[in-house]
């Protein structure tokens, strides 16, 4: 009879083992990483270039928290006082990331945690985040309907009355462009206001999303817009009748960055994700499909792609230097003006 019965200790041991099993399995499997990101193509490319080839083989489970940037910023702020947040990695544009970093939300990356950050382009380095991909602000136009523009000022040509479309989400970029042609600077957007009101009088239309603007460009409702070169590359690849022109005022770079929040539940995996995203293979994958330029020096692009999405050394030298502090300090006020005066 002995050995056939289940003793009290054995029963308790088995119960404890069962309770601990999920944690043990997760620990053995490398745990998980929660990435707060945009959806659509961007998420697909994260999976194809980072999650599947570089993270999952380490036994790490990848979860996405998909949303546009504003709700992600709100969640980061709402969770700032909690011990465990949602994200292990938060994806934001450089402007949004700076705004959030002011609240001291992120762990500083170091080469010990992310050895690949040694390869990051010097100009793109930040103490609170790592750059994932970048592009620049250009003019997209329909070559069948208009001459190639050379300056943002060309969009104010009365010949384009009612044919200029603007994406609502890029309001800061439109304000900056108008400021640059009306005596303003990256640190003074005030001159943009009267200039944009002129554009409004010329029938410029505001579209609620980049997708709605793309449909208008495709149908011929809109002939010109201000947009990221990478978007233009994607739209052109999709068969839309557009070309791009780098304005003589200079292209403004846009960097999409990632950071590990201080309250990330799986911080170590957050850093593993950062290391993976800076791998040359992952960087080139994004360039080929989305048209964003690698942020590392060791990921050369095939020449035909580089020609389409990169900026020449002269254009890079003429890049507009973004004043993040000015934008962070004035964003609410400028958005207020944009909503009430320009769109109203």
């Amino acid at each position: 009879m002995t050995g056939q019965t289940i003793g009290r200790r054995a029963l308790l041991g088995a119960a404890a083992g069962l309770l601990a099993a999920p944690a043990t399995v997760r620990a053995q499997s490398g745990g998980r990483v929660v990435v707060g990101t945009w959806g659509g193509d961007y998420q697909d490319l994260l999976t194809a270039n980072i999650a599947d080839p570089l993270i999952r083989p380490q036994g790490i489970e990848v979860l996405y928290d998909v949303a546009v940037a504003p709700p992600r910023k709100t969640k980061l702020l709402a969770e700032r006082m909690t011990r465990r947040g949602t994200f292990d990695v938060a994806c934001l544009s450089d402007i949004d990331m700076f705004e959030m970093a002011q609240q001291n939300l992120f762990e500083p990356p170091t080469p010990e945690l992310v050895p690949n950050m040694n390869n990051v382009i010097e100009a793109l380095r930040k103490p609170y985040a790592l750059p994932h991909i970048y592009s620049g602000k250009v003019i997209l136009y329909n070559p069948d309907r208009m001459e190639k523009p050379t300056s943002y000022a060309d969009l104010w040509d009365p010949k384009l009355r009612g044919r200029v479309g603007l994406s609502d989400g890029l309001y800061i970029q439109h304000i900056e462009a108008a400021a640059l042609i009306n005596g303003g600077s990256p640190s003074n957007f005030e001159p943009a206001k009267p200039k944009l009101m002129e554009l409004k009088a010329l029938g410029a239309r505001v579209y609620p999303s980049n997708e709605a603007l793309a449909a208008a460009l495709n149908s011929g409702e809109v002939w010109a817009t201000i947009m990221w070169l990478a978007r233009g590359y994607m739209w052109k690849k999709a068969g839309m009748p557009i070309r791009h022109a780098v304005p003589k005022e200079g292209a403004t770079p846009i960097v999409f960055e990632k950071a590990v929040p201080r309250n990330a539940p799986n911080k170590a995996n957050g850093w593993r994700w950062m290391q993976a995203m800076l791998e040359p293979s992952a960087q080139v994958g994004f360039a080929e499909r989305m048209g964003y330029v690698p942020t590392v020096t060791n990921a050369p692009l095939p020449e035909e792609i580089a020609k389409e999405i990169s900026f020449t050394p002269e254009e890079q030298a003429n890049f507009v230097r973004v004043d993040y502090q000015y934008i962070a300090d004035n964003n609410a006020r400028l958005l207020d003006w944009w909503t009430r005066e320009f769109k109203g």
Partner: protein
Amino acid sequence: MAVRQARRRAGAFSLGPFLLVPASLLVVAFLVAPLAVLFRYSFNRYSPREFMIDAFTLENYARFFTDSYFIGVLTTTVRVAAVCTVVSLVFAYPLAYLLARTESRWKSALVIAVVFPLMVGNVVRAAGWMAVLGNEGIVNHALLSLGLVTQPMRLMYTPFAVHVGIIAVVLPYMILTLQSVIEGIGRDVEEAAANLGAGPMTTFRRVLLPLSLPGVIAGCTLVFILCMNAYATPVLLGGPQFKMMAPALYDQFTRTTNWPFGAALAFILMTSTLVLTILGTVVLSRRMHYRKLEAAPR
């Protein structure tokens, strides 16, 4: 005597009030407490660098009531809600009457058809309207094909699109509320009115409408509240230029990260919805009361 004692004993140990505890705790934890926190935030001060500064100031409320833009947003919201409520009442009543009175074997199918849109989210429904009202949508395609217009009419991103979208969302609520009340009104009442020489319109005006007024009040209240708080439809069909209160306060929270002002907007929206709903209910209830007095035998 024994029964009374047993009742008293049962009363002494009644579990009734305790059964309310779990639900009350849930409401306090997930509704009252967050609202209290939000209310406190509405008195704080916004700073771009420090995000939110602890304070006790009325400046967020003062900003709203002294700013013509936000007063305009509230006015637009109330106007849209009122128009959509009235239009949905007018559209819903005949359908609700038909559903209540029909003895057809298709009645269940008709009720399911009314309920069916509720199974689809507001965003999906708005996407459907985009396909209908867009420049290359069904309406413009038909107008162009018939030669009624030479170029597409702008239907999307207009107040018209918002009204259509919201009415489509709230119509099932109005129909179902009215149907349940009309079903409770005996058909013999209408027959009695007809026997006394009342035509269909008189029967509706003097008999059916007064008797169904509780349903009208309930339906209008429900629909008005839904319209006042509409978010997805104004954003997707109204476009960037069209502003109602819910999208405006969402913008304050997410795009400008001005939580104190966003919280103030939330409480102004909540209060104005509550006040207008109570006002409407009181007015309609009084009307119902007078109707009863008029109809009472003298």
